């Protein structure tokens, strides 16, 4: 391994209660991915299929917290990553999944799995393998300390690129007009 390779920053990414749209947006930096890969290497990520996160410099988490497994994964990221980044509307605000927060969870499950008109003898899934849903969906900062936030649904590839290049260069990331977006 060359010295340059050793100095690469290790980055982990995951999608919790998200849609992978933010990961798609990360891929939207297109050919700049090659430049990025000169500076970083991926740890746990949908891109590597590594199942657990080891010690990392940067953890990028998409999606909010909607079930018990999300909490475990987020804590694993916080424990292992020097810098934790919440990416996208769901990670930052709870987003779309949090739109159930004013509804009763039991009523939601009954409507989806039992009383919905097309269902006959529906069952609410209760396999022990399935993580239990939380009463409410939470943004990441309500569960662990988050160092940086990139809002947007999803943030554009350009916003992600600006953020990452600022961070890699040792500057405080700032997005500015046109790149900071909540929608």
């Amino acid at each position: 391994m060359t010295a340059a390779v050793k100095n690469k920053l290790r980055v982990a990414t995951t999608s919790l209660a998200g849609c992978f749209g933010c990961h798609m947006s990360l891929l939207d930096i297109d050919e700049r991915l090659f430049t990025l890969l000169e500076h970083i290497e991926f740890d746990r990520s949908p891109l590597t299929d590594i199942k657990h996160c080891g010690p990392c410099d940067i953890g990028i988490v998409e999606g909010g917290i909607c079930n018990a497994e999300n909490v475990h994964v987020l804590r694993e990221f916080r424990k292992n990553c020097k810098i934790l980044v919440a990416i996208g509307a769901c990670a930052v605000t709870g987003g779309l999944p949090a739109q159930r927060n004013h509804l009763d969870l039991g009523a939601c499950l009954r409507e989806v799995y039992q009383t919905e008109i097309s269902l006959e003898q529906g069952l609410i899934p209760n396999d022990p393998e399935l993580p239990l849903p939380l009463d409410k969906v939470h943004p990441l900062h309500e569960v662990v300390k988050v160092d940086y936030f990139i809002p947007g649904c999803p943030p554009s590839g350009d916003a992600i690129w600006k953020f990452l290049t600022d961070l890699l260069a040792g500057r405080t990331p700032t997005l500015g007009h046109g790149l900071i977006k909540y929608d």
Partner: protein
Amino acid sequence: MSETHTFRLDGDEVPFAEGQTVIQAALSAGRYIPHLCYHPEFKPHGSCKVCTVKADGRAAASCTLPARAGMAVESDTEEMNDLRRTLVQMLFAEGNHFCPSCEKSGNCMLQALGYDLGVMTAGFRHFFPDRPVDASHPDLLLDFNRCILCELCVRASCEVDEKCVFALSGRGLDKHLVVNAVSGRLADTDVALGDKAVEVCPVGVILKKRVGFAQPIGARRYDARPISAQALDDAPRPGNHRSGCGACEEGAK
């Protein structure tokens, strides 16, 4: 025209006419002070506090603060902008501001202010309140989830439309927008599409039906230019205040 005096805003001389508030004088002079519940066409309300400045060392809402000759005003400072960011964050945490599904996105003052101040997160624990929408009116939708209690619709409906369709009810955390009808439904009021109250909502509470998302991304109000630039374009409009509203006086009898 009354005699012109000056005060200092962030070290620069700003002229003002007798009776002008600090924000009126600043905007007339092409100087932006972030604001939310202030609207050049209406009497200041002083409720959102986003326009807070330090005047001779004391914090005050610049929309209600009369300009005085020689006054030293600090606005574009880290301290004031931090305060404004916190206020915007609290508004985002208190309501349900889900921008990705909001028709007002791109045209919303609260959102644009968040962008301009660099608010990356609401920071606080979100309230996720339960606020059902009122879709009873054939032409208008009321989405209470996004209300920031600026009272612009209340002021416009009374002062301009002379209908007093809207009001705020409750106190403190319970304060909320209500519709002035026995049923509480918008359909049972005489609110109409062309009303000033409909036009003036800075966020996505009072929405016209069947026109949502008609404006493409890129052509929306705050897409090209930040609110700080946009506000200066809109600024020096003369106030057109009428003191009484027929409907209110009728109701008071």
